[in-house]
């Protein structure tokens, strides 16, 4: 939340998981964490929290929804994004700084970072290995839904840069309508140079720009964060 509030023009509020409406907000962020202790599967129980009905209906109406880390897992479990996050190939919890390469130009989440931009972002997860079946993977690529891939520092998509075994080095994807974006890295933990990288702030700024341009007049944004 501090990451979002630290960006001029944005303000975020926590929403309790038992609440049922998100009407007053322009965008929704599902942050990381380990909701319900990751019991059963990561995100499997959180996906049925009362607030998720509002997240799902608002997402269907086109509101911007961002899920980072555990938030990505919840979005996949809720069926808002295809695929699933499974145990890291190494079987280790990975806590590291990684480089991701932006793969598309037209997503509302990456307007501030054109295709090919390298972002330094932290990761911290045990179940971040992205899996989809081959048909869905083909569709993801054909529809330009892969927003980010893990890359080396020179921007090459190589196996050594893949921290968790994700299929085709996928770090983040969006839905077909391009308003729901999930990624395992934490842009929220890289939004200030004092944290080692401010690249994550580009994601939030992009969202702000996207929201502003869809409106006739620009008003202060309220970004909702579901805790």
């Amino acid at each position, binding site marked *: 939340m501090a990451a979002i509030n630290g960006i001029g023009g944005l303000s975020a509020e926590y929403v309790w998981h038992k609440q049922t409406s998100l009407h007053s907000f322009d965008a929704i962020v599902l942050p990381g964490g380990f909701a319900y202790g990751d019991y059963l599967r990561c995100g*499997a129980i959180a996906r049925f929290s009362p607030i998720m009905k509002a997240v799902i209906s608002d997402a269907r109406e086109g509101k911007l929804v961002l899920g980072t880390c555990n938030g990505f897992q919840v979005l996949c479990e809720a069926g808002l994004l295809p695929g699933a996050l*499974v145990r890291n190939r190494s079987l280790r919890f990975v806590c590291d700084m990684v480089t991701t390469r932006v793969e598309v130009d037209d997503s509302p989440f990456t307007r501030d970072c054109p295709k090919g931009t390298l972002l330094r972002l932290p990761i911290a997860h045990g179940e971040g290995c992205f899996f989809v079946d081959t048909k869905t993977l083909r569709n993801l690529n054909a529809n330009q839904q892969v927003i980010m891939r893990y890359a080396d520092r020179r921007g090459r998509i190589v196996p050594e840069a893949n921290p968790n075994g994700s299929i085709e080095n996928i770090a983040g994807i969006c839905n077909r309508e391009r308003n729901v974006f999930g990624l395992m890295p934490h842009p929220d933990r890289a939004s200030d140079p004092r944290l080692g990288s401010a690249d994550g702030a580009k994601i939030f700024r992009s969202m702000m720009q996207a929201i502003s341009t869809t409106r006739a007049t620009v008003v202060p944004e309220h970004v909702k964060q579901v805790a």
Partner: protein
Amino acid sequence: MPKAAVLDPQGNAVRDAMRHLGMPEVRRVRIGKYMEIDVDGKNGDLEARLHGLCHDLLSNPVIEDYELQRLEAEDSTFANPRSHSAPAGQPATARQRGVGSRKQKGRGA
């Protein structure tokens, strides 16, 4: 159970350990989950509702297959305090009418 196409690094680690311990014949190990669910009653739609929850909550059809099996109460760990203590205050009838859920690859439920 994880679907065949899903990488199971845990299964691979256990396979390697088994080979290391003198069983080179081991070709493959897949690790899934086994859940026991103790339910009341035998309503006609109980099993159908359990299948619904197996699909929506207990398994993720993107990566897992499941199988639902009805078990006799005496086969269930709920009824066997040596391996697992039964919940206190649980009515005997509930235990006698237990339905077990077993996830297994390739069998479909």
